[in-house]
């Protein structure tokens, strides 16, 4: 900001001088540029500096405001995620009765898990509408996610970015072009293959016609 402050007035004055010089040189030109007084340009420069300062301040403030709002939103979300207080109170009383009903053979770990499970169940029941119930059909194990990651690795290494590949149509067309019995590119020869492309092209054509208003409506 300081740089601009220092530099601006000088440069503007230089400009005016230059313009005058130019005036002297091409005297053939009829229209002379408007003369600008030094005072005027100074005020203009000062104004622009002021504006810049102002806008920077405003920006900072708006950013602050945004952050504050976001913070609020987070807090609200956190609150929303928690269960309502009355329910929590209920829960506090519930586990004791539940534990009494449980068989004594169950070990401690499961007891600790119990309230957690209940919470989850309660929340699910609340979100479900109608006559539905939730059950676990299949576990998503660590194994399957690791397997997926491994397959993704192979995929990225063989078919990922930076691996130069072409389409099968291009390959087949190349063979048609270079091979002993030459023919048209596959997308023209094989109707089945080009069906999708054709549909797309036709759609495009229609849009173009409509855009250009070739058919008067």
């Amino acid at each position, binding site marked *: 900001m300081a740089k601009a402050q220092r530099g601006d007035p000088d440069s503007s004055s230089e400009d005016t001088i230059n313009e005058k010089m130019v005036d002297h040189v091409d005297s053939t030109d009829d229209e002379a540029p408007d003369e600008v007084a030094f005072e005027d340009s100074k005020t203009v420069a000062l104004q622009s500096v002021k504006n810049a300062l102002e806008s920077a301040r405003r920006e900072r403030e708006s950013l602050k405001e945004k952050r504050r709002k976001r913070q609020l939103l987070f807090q609200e979300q956190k609150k929303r995620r928690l269960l309502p207080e009355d329910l929590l109170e209920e829960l506090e009383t519930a586990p004791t009765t539940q534990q009494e009903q449980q068989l004594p053979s169950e070990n401690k770990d499961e007891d600790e898990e119990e309230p957690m499970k209940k919470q989850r169940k309660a929340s699910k029941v609340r979100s479900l509408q109608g006559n539905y119930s939730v059950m676990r059909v299949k576990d998503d194990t660590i194994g399957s996610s690791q*397997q997926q990651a491994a397959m993704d690795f192979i995929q990225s290494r063989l078919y990922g970015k930076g691996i130069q590949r072409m389409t099968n149509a291009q390959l087949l067309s190349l063979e048609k072009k270079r091979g002993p019995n030459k023919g048209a590119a596959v997308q023209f020869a094989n109707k089945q293959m080009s069906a999708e492309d054709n549909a797309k092209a036709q759609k495009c054509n229609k849009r173009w016609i409509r855009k250009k208003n070739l058919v008067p409506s």
Partner: protein
Amino acid sequence: MGEFKVHRVRFFEYMPSAIRALAFNSRSEKLAVARMDGSVEIFNRADNLFQEKVIPGREQRTIESLLWVGDRLFSAGLSGEIAEFDLDNLRVKYTLDAYGGPIWSMTGNAQGTHLAVGCEDGTVKLFEVLMDRIQFERNLDRQKGRIISLSWHPSGSKIAAGMMGMIRVFDVKTGHPVHRLLVERAAGTPRNQDCVVWSVVFLSDYTIISGDSSGKVKVWDGKTGTLIKNHQVTKWDVLALSVSQSEDSLVAGTSEGTVVQFQFLSQVLGQGEKEWVATRTFKNHTHDVRAVAEIQTAFVSGGMDTQLFVRPFLDKVECRTQASAIRKVLFPHRRLVSCAKKAGLLLFQYPTHLELWRLGESEGHGKPGTILPVKKNPEKLLHLKIKGEDHICCSAVSPCGEWIAYATVSSVRLYRILCDNNNVSITKVSKLPKVLSSASQLCFSSDSTHLFAASTHASVHVIALSQSGCKFVHTFKPKSGSTQCAHLLATSEDGAWLGSAHTDHHVHVYNLKKLKAHCTVPVYNSGVSAMAIHPTTNNLVMVHADNQIFEYSIEDKKYTNWTREVQRHGLHNLWLEKGTPITHVTFNPRNPAHIVMHDMNMFCIIDQTLPLPENMMQFHNQQTLQVLPEKERQSAMHAFKTCKSFQHLMCVDLLDDQSLVVVERPLLDITTQLPAPVRQKKFAT
């Protein structure tokens, strides 16, 4: 040959799965092939590369590596499990979690006592191979980063492990790494992308050969851990390596679809130090080659283009024989289409669903070779998705079109279908007999009253079907102690006989009226690829993988005179050299002397009344016959009439109304659905 109305069917969208791993057992000459969908196929190299066994795949089973230990077959994959296969009953015997995350590779020592698996978490785990299971023994020192490839030194003392950007050599006894061989990444790749050592081979002279993602085949000295030679093979990845048993030849499969052969040669013949030299490049594939295997005098390669290719090394072949021919396996050697002859329905078997189609209709008669106008389009009646994770291993539709059955390794399901006008309703038959827990082949009797299911231990169950449900009738068991399950079943038209062909080449015939074993056909040394019982004479016609045809009279329990004639005379060389086995045999009810059979490339009608072709005669002679005068034509005719106008056949069958159903799957349609190939720049294109 006769004129037929032909239904040319092209709506079976069969899509083979890409080949991921190969393993060759040099003792039994069996080749195991693992596909991306988790299925494993066993080919017999000694028997014209016939696909003897297929173990169906399973969802989430991704096999990365196959290994023979003696006659036992193991697989390991990204699901983190090691599995052993039950090759008699075509299923997984057991699985064992290695607890190291996804398994990238597996290798065994030369003695056949231990397995080593390389895991995602950076451990190499050793397993001991016991009589009926495998047991975890110990881990080698854990490394940072996944173990992509493994190779065990033939002496058993060291293991080389390919990782991200390096190769580690482990001492098996102590479990500590001995060497670290750094593999630099290719020029121009991002800094965060390490070079992947896709494959590594440890030779007995302590040479390590590696293939990596920078497209190089590197030869290392395993004793000192230094690089000896660097071969830039391709711009893309070198994905697979395999060395011959004598360790003088090595093949490398690349992303480009090429297979490069290296040989251990000296610069001057017979003197000087030997080194690995790239000698030949084979281009058999259009897509990435994911697996290669050296087998004695040839190499096998397979990859993303789903084709299995066997190519002989001509320098190792002494004389040109059947076994030294180039072989290509594109389609499975068994039927995926079943046809309801009376109702005109087709059942297509996909890995995870079944489709039932009704054939279209046409009107009028045209000249031979013309296309008739279609009156009614073929319609898809049913799309049946299977439950569970196992893929379908066999399926069948009854001739009347009322019943559909399919089997996976864990269950058999039977459905009843009612079609009235445009409404199709399907009901599952709920109470199947308990014995019907799995089936390797299913077949309905010609009057659709019985279902036959080939099951474990070579048994065949007979189930009676009725409106109310189904009832278990009998279980046939062969008298001889064969335990391998049947892969083909055939019933006679009159419902009296049932033939079953087993993977150990046995063929048994059962009497369905008396419910007992009738006879066993003399064992031939080649597997049965197709068989059927003649509707009028009750002769069992068997076609073997080596293209020999036998006709066996069930009632007389002996080969027929025609078979004796064929054996005495011999078949035409062109027929015997055919590289694709016959997959289906059927008969023409109007002309009982005609046998219709087909393979992938053609279908043919064999006229038993005509003489067999001499070796000197032209085999495909229909064109010539047309221009010959009447008198000469009679003498030039022979029994084999082939038709190649329909290409890449999945099924050819004769319906009861004398029309021919031809199910085609053009290779072009398969190619267009494959994953992307590498970019090829050809000059002036």
